[in-house]
């Protein structure tokens, strides 16, 4: 007898945003074939409208109660739906940036926007995946689209090299994750995360070695994807070499989706393990990533590379939030004898709720800020410079306040937000994450985070100093303006400031209970 799974319309809500994105991507690819208008800005508008529709659908999903869907292969919860909203916001803004950028390089093609939308569909589904094979497929959907986007301007030497490095390390990370998943499947006989959570404590007794090996490999795979130190080597080269709008999308979308998937995976995988193991591993990753990212960013004169290292530091602050979920409950683990304790680590629901709010608000703030910062760079960089090594040198920003006062003001807002200076949104994001970490008992790690973020202010403010206090070079070229770039910069600058001043409704909504299924 054929055992057909029952899938109701209610289950399909989880794939609707991704379906809208894929549909838009197909329309774009067909329009590339059938409409050969010389002005292709309409493609960016199609991409924007598609991500807007997907974002609205995802926002509607965010009000549904958290539950398992599609036979437990996916989860629909406010955490993943809100992540999809942020991805759609990021994709829409990045496609506006891309319109001006590609037009200037005479490389506007439907495939570019289609690949962006495919990547966004992968991110949206990755955040909702609740099973290892599904998770791997969605991770690869987003990665393969991003490899192609990175190498899109393939005639230049840097994009091809960046695409190549990203591809090799991304595929390597994917293979680590998959082998880890295979070992965990061997230990428990399931690949569904919610079943793993219940079966792992039993499997620890019989096949503990497999569980630990699988856990380590999955963690290493995710650490590559979120660019945590010491798995970050690819990030600066890839971020520098990729076309700037693609870098913007990578720094926000790929990272956000990977962090959300990481939270969901490890909430299931820590069950049954010695609670100290995940805690120590995550604390170490967070510590190294926060300190390493900031230290490596300091000597950079190349602004795009500096922002790449800064994105590593920001991943570190997010990992600090993730670590706060895995703080062992000292009293509980000592009565159970520690090692094979089957008690869930996550006793303190209030701390977890504040961590989820911190992570999501931080990601929202980072999305608008980082898109804006890379967008300003995309706006001032010129095609003729592509092969030179000083394309993104600080000197290029000198005197921007006289040449383009609006852009300089926006860039200053983005830099202050990245540095975490009030009243920008970056300050509140850091405040929520650090206070959640302190509530969870991670006082020392939070202190290190605050200190490293203060040290980071140096390289962000240096950009502001160059823009406002250094004279423009005499041969400073005229900037290439395009209305879509201006719209994207205005939207991200307004959001950076406005969300910092009036976070109220969003922050309140994010702190309600039931954000993460089973969390």
């Amino acid at each position, binding site marked *: 007898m054929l055992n057909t799974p029952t899938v109701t319309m209610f289950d399909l809500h989880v794939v609707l945003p991704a379906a809208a994105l894929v549909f838009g991507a197909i329309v774009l690819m067909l329009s590339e074939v059938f409409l050969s208008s010389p002005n292709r800005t309409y493609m960016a508008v199609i991409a924007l409208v598609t991500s807007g529709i997907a974002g609205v659908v995802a926002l509607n999903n965010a009000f549904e109660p958290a539950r398992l869907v599609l036979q437990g292969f996916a989860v629909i919860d406010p955490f993943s739906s809100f992540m999809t909203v942020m991805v759609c916001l990021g994709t829409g803004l990045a496609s506006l940036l891309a319109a001006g950028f590609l037009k200037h390089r005479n490389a506007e093609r439907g495939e570019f926007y289609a690949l962006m939308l495919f990547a966004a569909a992968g991110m949206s589904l990755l955040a909702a995946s609740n099973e290892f*094979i599904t998770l791997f497929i969605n991770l690869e959907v987003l990665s393969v689209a991003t490899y*192609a986007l990175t190498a899109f301007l393939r005639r230049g*030497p840097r994009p091809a090299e960046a695409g*190549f490095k990203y*591809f090799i390390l991304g*595929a390597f990370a994917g293979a680590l994750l998959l082998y880890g998943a295979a070992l965990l499947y061997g230990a428990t*006989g399931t690949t569904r995360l919610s079943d793993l959570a219940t079966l792992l404590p039993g499997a620890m007794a019989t096949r503990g070695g497999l569980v630990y090996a699988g856990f380590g490999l999955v963690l290493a795979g995710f650490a590559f994807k979120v660019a945590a130190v010491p798995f970050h080597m690819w990030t600066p080269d890839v971020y520098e070499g990729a076309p700037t709008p693609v870098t913007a999308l990578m720094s926000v979308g790929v990272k956000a989706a990977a962090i959300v998937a990481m939270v969901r995976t490890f909430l299931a995988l820590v069950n049954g393990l010695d609670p100290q193991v995940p805690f120590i591993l995550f604390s170490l990753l967070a510590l190294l990533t926060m300190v390493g990212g900031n230290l490596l960013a300091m000597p950079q004169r190349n602004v795009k590379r500096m922002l790449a290292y800064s994105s590593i530091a920001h991943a570190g602050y997010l990992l600090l939030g993730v670590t706060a979920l895995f703080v062992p409950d000292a009293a509980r683990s000592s009565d159970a004898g520690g090692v094979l304790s089957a008690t869930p680590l996550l006793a303190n629901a209030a701390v977890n709720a504040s961590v989820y709010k911190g992570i999501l608000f931080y990601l929202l703030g980072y999305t608008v800020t980082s898109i804006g910062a890379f967008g300003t760079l995309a706006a001032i960089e010129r095609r003729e410079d592509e092969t030179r090594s000083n394309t993104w040198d600080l000197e290029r920003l000198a005197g921007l306040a006289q040449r383009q006062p609006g852009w300089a003001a926006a860039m200053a807002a983005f830099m202050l937000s990245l540095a975490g200076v009030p009243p920008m949104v970056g300050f509140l994001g850091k405040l929520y994450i650090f206070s959640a970490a302190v509530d969870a008992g991670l006082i020392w790690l939070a202190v290190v985070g605050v200190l490293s973020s203060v040290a980071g202010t140096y390289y962000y403010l240096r950009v502001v100093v160059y823009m406002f206090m250094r004279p423009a070079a005499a041969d400073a070229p005229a900037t290439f303006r395009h209305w879509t770039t201006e719209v994207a910069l205005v939207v991200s600058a307004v959001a950076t400031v406005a969300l910092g001043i009036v976070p109220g409704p969003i922050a309140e909504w994010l702190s309600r209970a039931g954000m993460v299924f089973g969390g």
Partner: protein
Amino acid sequence: MTVVPTAHYLILAAALFCMGMLGVLVRRNALVVFMCIELMLNAANLTFLAFARERGDVVGHLGPFFIIAVAAAEAAVGLAIVIAVFRNRGTVNIEEIQSMKH
């Protein structure tokens, strides 16, 4: 007929995975590195299949189909990128593909 025990498959898979990982870390030719990654993915497939056979589980058998399909898509994009690099540089040696400063 004697049945091959699961452990043998797992040892073979682990050996393939380690060979692949070492290859990615030490080999310098981009195509060989790429083949090593495929080796790692196949080690994961073999592990899934060995455990699925031991447990008589269908879901475990299905996983590798998806993984093979994903690996094929990845190969298409990856080889295209390798060709783009070769056209630019005339080499696929990883040590020579380092134009960005660290």
